[in-house]
């Protein structure tokens, strides 16, 4: 067996057999699914709680306007003063008291209504209440002006624009969000992967230095081979762990869903509430999603994901290894971490702010060529349609730079692994390049 595959095998087995690695592999999905389940369970509990709001309507205009809904009951109070009503509401532990005073005209209501409660009320409850009042007030106003509200409703025309690209592909507004989700997920995944497993490589280089085995090893193999073997071995271990996580989370979620009848995906989110508001449209939206996924350049995305993932990860991994070689212990790594993290964070920022805004703008384009940001930024741009030559150019730049960083890392590595005792400065590291 040649040296490189020997080293890769050792690094891989060493990582995979490591106790904390095994524990993390199984514990992380457990914790994640556990937290989601807990949140889902708690928010269900919260939803089940009945809230009662007392209403003192002195204007008498809104008697039938408030309909009880799930979790929110309305109780009309009549023939008592405001201060009495407050006491009643408080004593019967109501969520709050809505006070609608009598005003001269309907406009006067806009500032006169008050909601009394123990604490600041939930925004959702206030939205419900305000919506109900506004609806009624507007209807009254129309009536006052002699306009038939029903007629207006019937005369209303709803416009749903059909979107189509010049090439004739159907799209929808939903598509942009979906593209962003795909690109964002890919970019973010890479970002996380780099940070977690880059650190792992760094630690394994430091371990070899502190255990002083390094000189024994490099009297047998070239430092570059050791460096590459480490990067590949750790990457394989990382991919193993990632896959294990995906599978475990999948299995656990299914189990949890079927046992507890809790849908972890049912954690309420603003988007979901939006979707639920028009449940009749659900089917349409689902169809749109399927259509949009079909419209995404999926093959392109998958192929480029693989290229950018490998290239981007290797690029950063070699830098992490160089840092590991330059220092003696993990505590000394901080000063060198910043220059690595900065471009990574920048890439994510550019991705989530600029690319969303304008996927093909100058800033997005420039950052999708710079090798330190391109993996994240380009991955986020691709769903929006990037010419193939641009993608290829970006990949070529990325891999060319990777060769450069490996050369650079190998230089630092070769010298650094044999240096003990003192924390090097940037100036010294630059000097090492010339040794």
């Amino acid at each position, binding site marked *: *067996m040649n*040296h490189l595959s*020997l*080293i890769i095998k*050792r690094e891989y087995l*060493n990582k995979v057999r*490591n106790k904390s690695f095994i524990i993390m592999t199984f514990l992380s999905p457990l914790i994640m699914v556990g937290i989601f389940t807990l949140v889902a369970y708690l928010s269900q509990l919260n939803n089940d709680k009945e809230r009662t709001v007392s209403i003192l309507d002195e204007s008498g205009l809104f008697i039938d306007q408030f309909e009880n809904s799930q979790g929110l009951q309305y109780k009309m109070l009549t023939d008592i003063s405001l201060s009495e009503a407050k006491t009643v509401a408080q004593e019967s532990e109501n969520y709050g008291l809505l006070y609608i005073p009598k005003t001269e005209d309907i406009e006067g209501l806009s500032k006169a209504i008050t909601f009394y409660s123990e604490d600041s009320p939930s925004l959702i409850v206030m939205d419900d209440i305000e919506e109900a009042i506004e609806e009624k007030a507007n209807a009254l106003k129309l009536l006052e002006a002699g306009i038939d509200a029903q007629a207006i409703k019937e005369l209303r025309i709803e416009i749903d624009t059909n979107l189509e690209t010049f090439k004739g592909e159907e799209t929808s507004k939903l598509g942009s969000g979906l593209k962003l989700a795909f690109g964002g997920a890919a970019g973010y995944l890479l970002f996380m992967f780099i940070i977690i497993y880059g650190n792992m490589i760094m630690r394994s280089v430091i*371990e*070899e230095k502190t*255990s*002083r*085995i390094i*000189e*024994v*090893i*490099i*009297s*047998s*193999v*070239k430092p570059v081979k050791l460096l590459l073997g480490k990067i590949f071995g750790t990457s394989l271990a990382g991919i193993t762990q990632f896959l294990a996580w995906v599978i475990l989370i999948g299995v656990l979620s299914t189990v949890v869903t079927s046992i507890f009848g809790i849908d972890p995906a049912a954690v309420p989110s603003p988007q979901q509430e939006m979707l639920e508001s028009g449940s009749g449209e659900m089917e349409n939206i689902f169809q749109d999603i399927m259509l949009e996924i079909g419209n995404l350049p999926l093959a392109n995305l998958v192929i480029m994901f693989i290229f950018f993932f490998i290239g981007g990860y290797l690029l950063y991994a070699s830098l992490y290894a160089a840092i590991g070689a330059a220092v003696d212990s993990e505590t000394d790594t901080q000063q060198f971490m910043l220059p690595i993290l900065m471009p990574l964070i920048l890439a994510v920022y550019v991705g989530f702010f600029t690319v969303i805004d304008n996927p093909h703008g100058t800033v997005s384009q420039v950052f999708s060529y710079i090798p330190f940001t391109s993996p994240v930024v380009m991955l986020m741009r691709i769903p929006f349609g990037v010419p193939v030559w641009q993608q290829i150019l970006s990949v070529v730049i990325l891999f060319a730079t990777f060769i450069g960083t490996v050369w650079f890392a190998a230089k630092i590595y070769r010298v650094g692994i*044999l240096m*003990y005792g003192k924390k090097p400065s940037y100036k010294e590291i630059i*000097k090492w390049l*010339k*040794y």
Partner: protein
Amino acid sequence: MEKLLVAQNVSKSFGNYKALNDISIEVPKGSIFGLLGPNGAGKTTFIRIINQITMPDTGEVILDGEPLQPEHIQHIGYLPEERGLYKSMKVGEQALYLAQLKGLSKQEAKKRLKYWFERLEIGDWWNKKIQELSKGMAQKIQFVVTVLHQPKLLIFDEPFSGFDPINANLIKDEILKLREDGATVIFSTHRMESVEEMCDHIALIHESNKILDGKLIDIKRAYKSNTYEVGLHTSDQEKVTAALHEKFEVFPASFKSINNELQYKIKVSEAASANDLVSYLTTQGELTHFVEVIPSANDIFIETVQNN
């Protein structure tokens, strides 16, 4: 004598610091070659160049007639001064890995490891992790790994550090046996008694320069100063002492003796022989002790380093 390793005009600088200045060394086949020098002299850099860990700026190293190249690593066994093993790896697994890196097949490595483990009586460590072993035990494993691929050239940097006297002796005997089996040994140490005991050639490096090299016997001959340690039994000690001081360079000496005698180191001129001194001394009293003072490796080391 045939040379296994020849270094010709090797120089190496790190930035402005010159670690090795024009070093030329020849290591005869089958010898135990002591590479000596004070701390920071450049020994480790030189050893790393032989191991191709660092490249020389100028100069050439020739191993067994061929300029040094990557394939040669399997002919070299190196035990560095800064040594260690993967702490969380099992002994057997680790030894197999390191042996395979040196070019042995897995089966062959296993076979030889079994032999060595039995020989050093460490067979039951195979499934232990390094972190469960003591430092001396780990050193034994390290020694086995260094010699396992039967290299032509063995380089030991302070091989006895970390060993108790019994194990140090065991390792010393193993090194001597390896030499008998045909290996050449380069041996870097500060323990002069082991140099005295084992080395037949030495080279002394001081402040990046080679200041001395050759056969240990030749060097000792060159460094001897025609000085003899004598014991002289005489009735009139004062008179004899005065006479000796007049005739020779005399230094005080002290050695164990059952006689109550005069004890001196006496240096004679180049032209005079030991016999001349003996015949003079016998006229002065009864000669009870007569030994030529041979400089120890320690003396030579200190003298040359201080004079440079």
